[in-house]
C-alpha cells in the first residue's frame, strides 16, 4: 500500500473515489456554451470594437485571423480561380438584348464611375462597415445593350467557372448596383474578386459575385450558386435568409 494514498480516494474503489469534479467541468462547459449563445450579441459588439481598434495598430496581421477580427473572409466555391488582368479580362453582355457587347477593363474604366460607401454584410454574420466601392452602374451597361421588352431578369457568370448569381431586371437597374472596379479606394485584388466584381449594396454579400465575366439578360430568374443550395434569391439585408440585420442602404 502506497502511503501517499489518502484513505478513501483509491482509484480502484469507485464508490469512494472523491468528488465528481469531472462531471462539474463537463456540465459547466455546456452551461458556459449556452450562456455564450445567449450573451453573444453584446459580447460580439464589444469584441468587434476592441479587435477593430487592435487591427489598426497590428503590424503582424494576426488579428485578421481572429474571429471577425479583420473584416473580410475569403470565400470561393471553385477549386482554383484563374487570374485576369487588363490584357486578358473581358466582360460580355448578351441574352435578350439588341446590342450584345464585350468590354475590356479599359473600356469599363473609360465609362463614368460611381463611388458608394456602404456596409458589407455577409449572410453568415460578419460585417465590414463603411466600405467604399467604385465602378460603373449596371443600369448603364444594360441601357447601352438595349434590353428587349420580354426581358425579366439577369444571370451573372464568373470566370472562376462555377459561381453564378441572379437579379430581377428591376433590382439590376437600381442605382446602388455596380459593376465594381475598385474597393476600399484600391483596384479590386484577385482575392476580393478582381479585377471586376458585382456589387449589390442592399443585399447580402453573396449576391455581389466575384470575378464577374458575364451578364446575360433572361426572361426569368435563374437561381444562382448558393440559391440552389438554400439561400434566398431576393437577398435584401435584414429582410431575407431568416435574418434581421440593419439594412445596408
Amino acid at each position, binding site marked *: 500500500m*502506497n502511503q*501517499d*494514498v*489518502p484513505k478513501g*480516494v*483509491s*482509484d*480502484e474503489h*469507485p464508490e469512494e*473515489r*472523491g*468528488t*465528481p*469534479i*469531472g*462531471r*462539474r*467541468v*463537463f*456540465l*459547466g*462547459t*455546456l452551461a*458556459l*456554451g*449556452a450562456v*455564450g*449563445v*445567449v450573451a*453573444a*450579441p453584446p*459580447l*460580439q459588439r464589444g469584441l468587434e470594437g476592441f479587435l477593430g481598434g487592435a487591427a489598426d495598430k497590428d503590424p503582424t496581421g494576426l488579428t*485578421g*485571423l*481572429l*474571429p*471577425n477580427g479583420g473584416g473580410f*473572409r*475569403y*470565400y*470561393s*466555391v*471553385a*477549386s*482554383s*480561380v484563374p487570374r485576369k488582368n487588363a490584357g486578358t479580362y473581358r466582360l460580355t453582355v448578351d441574352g435578350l438584348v439588341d446590342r450584345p457587347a464585350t468590354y475590356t477593363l479599359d473600356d469599363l474604366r473609360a465609362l463614368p464611375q460611381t463611388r458608394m460607401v456602404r456596409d458589407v454584410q455577409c449572410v*453568415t*454574420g460578419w460585417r465590414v462597415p463603411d466600405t467604399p466601392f467604385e465602378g460603373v452602374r449596371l443600369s448603364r451597361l444594360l441601357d447601352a445593350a438595349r434590353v428587349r421588352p420580354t426581358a425579366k431578369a439577369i444571370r451573372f457568370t464568373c470566370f472562376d467557372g462555377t459561381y453564378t448569381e441572379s437579379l430581377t431586371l428591376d433590382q439590376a437597374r437600381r442605382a446602388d448596383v455596380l459593376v465594381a472596379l475598385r474597393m476600399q479606394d484600391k483596384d479590386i485584388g484577385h*482575392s476580393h474578386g478582381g479585377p471586376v466584381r458585382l456589387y449589390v449594396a442592399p443585399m447580402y454579400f453573396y449576391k455581389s459575385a466575384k470575378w464577374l465575366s458575364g451578364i446575360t439578360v433572361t426572361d426569368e430568374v435563374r437561381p444562382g450558386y448558393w440559391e440552389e*443550395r*438554400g439561400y434566398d434569391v431576393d437577398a435584401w439585408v435584414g429582410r431575407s*435568409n*431568416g*435574418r*434581421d440585420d440593419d439594412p445596408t442602404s
Partner: protein
Amino acid sequence: MTLRADTPPATARVRRFTPLQRWIHRTTAALMGVCVVTAACLYIPQLAELVGRRALVVTLHEWAGLALPVPVLAALASRVFRADLGRLNRFGPHDRTWLRAALHRDKRRSSRPAAKFNAGQKLYASWIAGATLVMLATGLMMWFTHLTPLLWRTSATFVHDWLALTIGIVLAGHIGMALADPESRRGMRTGKVTREWAKREHPLWRP
C-alpha cells in the same frame, strides 16, 4: 540468457488501455482531425484561397462534426471504458496537490501525485467532452438554418468561432504533451506501458 538482459521481460509492461479504448481514441482523433483541417480551410484566408471548393469542405466538416461524439457514445457500452470515465470524473486530494503544483510550475515528481490519470488529464477530458457538444449544438444551429429563431444563428456563429480557436489551442497542448512523452504515446498505441513509467508518472495507479 543475454537476450533477456538486453530487453525488459514482457512482464515489465503493464496494460493501460484495451484495444477498444485505443480504437475509440483513434477514430475520435481522426474525426477531430478532419474537423480541424476543414475548419482551417474554411477559416484561414490563405488556406481558403488555396483549397476553394467551399461546398465540399463544408459538407466534410459538417459530417465529421456530427460523427465526432459517436465513438465515445458507442463505447459507453463497454464496462472497462465506463470504469475509466469514472476515474476521470472523480478528483481526490492528490489531484488538488497536482493542480497546485502545475499552477506553480513545480515539476518535482513528489508534488505531482497521480492515479491512472493525472488531474490535468481529467480536466482536459471533461472540458473537451463538453466543448465538443457545444460545438455540435452551435454547428447544428448554423447547419439547419430554420431550426432556431433568427438572432440565435449569429450568436451560434460567434460561440462556434471563438470556441474553435480555444479548442485549437488546447488540442495543440494535448498533442504537444503527447509528443514530449514517447512512453505515454506507446501506451495509447500498444495499450501497454513500462512498469517504471507507470510508477514514475502515475504513482497511485495500481494496474
